[in-house]
């Protein structure tokens, strides 16, 4: 056990040479781990080690809520024996937090939750890491989108929408560009054979305002954030991008049901530091299988209108790679990245 750890330490230092801060952090973690190694070598996780949980965004955001929900469940059901220290390391759209975890290569006690930026930030900035570098634990849920029009619109169904858009190009609003909000309608339009102008907004409420003021023809958004307006009839849902329509949107078809499967969504999952020991990965996979069975988790999924999509271990790595490649292809074809 011990030689293996030493091994990992060397690789860490080599791969990070030149990146002084990262190395310093890595060394700081590697040294106590090496001293502690003989005593705990048999068992993961050790009750003496504090789990260092990185939240790559500020308090209150989607990533923060997910991380704290999982930690709460771990504590409530006594699933993790030691202490868990969760820290918000926000900055650079996740680059800072995940960079911090990346620098802990081989450490089984560094962990983090992912969100959309986990795929998009490396496409935009020179991050030293790529999503597939980390040790994958599980994809737990995906964020999917619903296409809506103004409640007073003449368009009642998605078929009418496609027909109208084929006649006269529509404009569709979404949040951000290097984002699933842009990718989903782009792929959907390709499959369904219509053209549209994408109008990007900074936030869901800005684009909702624009749609309600009749400046936009349609928009895509996370159903959770506009459910109230859908229920009150001010917005009309046409089609959903996920695999199963959530209960709140009953009767709305999915893109796949129409025969226009697009196969991308934002991954909400759990990762360990790169090259984390296999037993750590295995332990977390087993634990997460218990976490997703709890009523608290069901409640989290329901209140955030996420699509429960569970994939474990290496399959999650493949998923991340595919998502990244899909995004890269679409973004490159429209010139958003080079």
């Amino acid at each position, binding site marked *: 056990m011990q030689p293996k750890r030493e091994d990992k330490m060397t690789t860490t230092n080599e791969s990070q040479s030149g990146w002084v801060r990262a190395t310093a952090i890595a060394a700081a973690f590697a040294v106590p781990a090496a001293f502690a190694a003989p005593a705990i070598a048999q068992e993961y996780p050790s009750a003496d080690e504090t789990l260092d949980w990185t939240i790559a965004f*500020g*308090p*209150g*955001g989607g990533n923060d809520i997910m991380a704290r929900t999982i930690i709460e469940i771990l504590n409530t059901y006594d699933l993790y024996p030691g202490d868990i220290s969760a820290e*918000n*390391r*926000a*900055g*650079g*759209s996740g*680059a*800072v937090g995940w*960079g911090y975890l990346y620098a802990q290569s081989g450490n089984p006690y560094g962990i983090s939750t992912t969100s959309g930026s986990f795929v998009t*930030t490396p496409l*935009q*900035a*020179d*991050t030293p890491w790529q999503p597939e570098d980390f040790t994958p634990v599980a994809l737990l849920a995906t964020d999917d989108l619903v296409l809506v029009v103004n409640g007073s619109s003449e368009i009642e169904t998605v078929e009418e929408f496609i027909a109208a858009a084929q006649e006269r190009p529509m*404009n569709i*609003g979404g949040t*951000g*560009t*290097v984002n699933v909000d*842009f990718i989903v309608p782009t792929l959907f339009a390709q499959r369904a054979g219509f053209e549209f*102008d*994408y*109008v*990007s*907004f*900074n*936030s*869901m*409420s*800005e684009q*909702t*305002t*624009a749609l*309600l*003021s*009749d*400046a*936009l023809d349609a928009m895509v958004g996370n159903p959770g954030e506009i459910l*109230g*307006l859908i229920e009150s009839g001010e917005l009309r849902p046409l089609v959903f991008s996920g695999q199963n329509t959530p209960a709140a949107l009953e009767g709305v078809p999915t893109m796949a049901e129409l025969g226009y499967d697009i196969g991308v969504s934002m991954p909400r999952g759990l990762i360990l530091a790169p090259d984390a020991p296999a037993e750590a990965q295995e332990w977390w996979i087993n634990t997460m299988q218990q976490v997703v069975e709890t009523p608290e988790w069901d409640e989290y999924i329901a209140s955030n209108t996420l699509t429960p999509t569970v994939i474990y271990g290496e399959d999650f790595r493949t998923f991340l790679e595919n998502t990244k490649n899909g995004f890269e292809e679409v*973004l490159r074809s429209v*010139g*958003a*990245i080079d």
Partner: protein
Amino acid sequence: MDIFGDLLMGLSVAITPINMLYLLAGAMVGMIVGVIPGFGPSAGLAILLPVTFGMDPISAIMMLAAIYYGAMYGGTITSILLNTPGESATVASTFDGFPLAKKGRAGPALVMQAVASFVGGTVGVILITILAPMFAQVSRSFGPPEYFLLAIMGMLTLVVMIGKEWKLGLISALIGFALGTVGVDLETGQGRYTFGSAELIGGIYFIPIAIGLFGLGELFFAFYQGLHKTGSGGIIQYENEERFWPTAQDWISTRMTMARHSVLGFVVGVIPGAGATIASLMAYSTERSISKNSENFGKGEMAGLVAPETANNAASSGAMIPLLTLGIPGSASTAVLLAAFLLWGLRPGPLFMEQNPELAWGLIASMYLGNMALLAISIFAIPLFVQLIKVPYRVLGPTVVVICTLGTFSVHASFVETYLMFAAGIIGFFMRLYGFSPAALVLALVLGPLAEEALRQTLTISRGSFMIFVERSASLWIIAITIALVVFLPLLNRFGKSAGQAEKAGG
């Protein structure tokens, strides 16, 4: 619209013991921030933002709002006792406030300013209660074209209101716009001036800039003026005055003044880019021109203190309207308040009150309570603030530097932002020295990206045609109002400024 029902619901949210505690803390901090010269509500708010991270959103927002309007109360104490305005919005309060104190009427002046502030603030909140839901209704017809025009309106009003130095103001605004272009371009997703740095993907955050410009910059300027050398010797003693409470005459002669300037101040506050400073100067000059005792103005006339005090508080309430119903800040301090909402994942706008009724009405209800608390604090805690004024600036100064640094770092735990804050502090000093406008820079940094995005969204929607601005009736209205403001405001402003300068020279 059942306003009373909503307000009662808001009251039930606001009145929990823990929320009341935060509200009082906010009011107290607001007073303190107001009292410290050169340390305004925008810097105070920005620094205290991270403190609220562990709180409930409603407690946090209530507390931050209390700091914002509380500063208007505190700023006057130094205006009266020291002839040094604690705040730019209380400059007009020195014109008659200080002469009153010199005449041995500091006590009545302090009490009357508290009452005037309370009346202005409370009338302002009543008007918010009535008008905000209506504004929200109107603003539902606003899309990107209207947002672009509103942002332009805000910048134009701000620059026009600077008056003689408008060119420097314009340059300041352009620097703000330039800084606002850093970050990922929303439409194409390409990085602009990010140099591949992940820290700059999100653009230059305006909070460190605001803390630097308004916190450190003003501090350096205060030292440059030698504030650290002048002790508190100039402070007027009020303890030995024969009468602390105002006379019946004081009340009677100023009741109409309060009524008038509550409304005037509120209206000026609603206009993006105008705000409390302008409202107070305008109120002073209007009051002087319609008063029967106009020759006493500048020599210690109570109405001359009451008018600007009522107006600046009413204006700070008025500024909440565009903030809550449009999500457009009209000043640097409301921009920081907006940032607070955003940090909590709340996006003010036309749908905000409808979708977050508890938060919106809780905040509005808390402003009634906050103003009451501030009235009590600013009368009964005066000795406490006098002690604070007596703290030498050479002690206060370094403390402010430490607080600014900690405050900036704790927002995102970012070194880059901390360096930006120090750089902004140095730039802020020179801006003050040469008459540039830090407020214009900060507002442009916030409104610039908003205007750019809205314009590009508009043109994508209209497929490149500018006709969309005259085809939508809401756009046409905004254009008409903007033209009216740009024509009329400078006239009023000139009127206000010249009155102010005359008083300064005379007093």
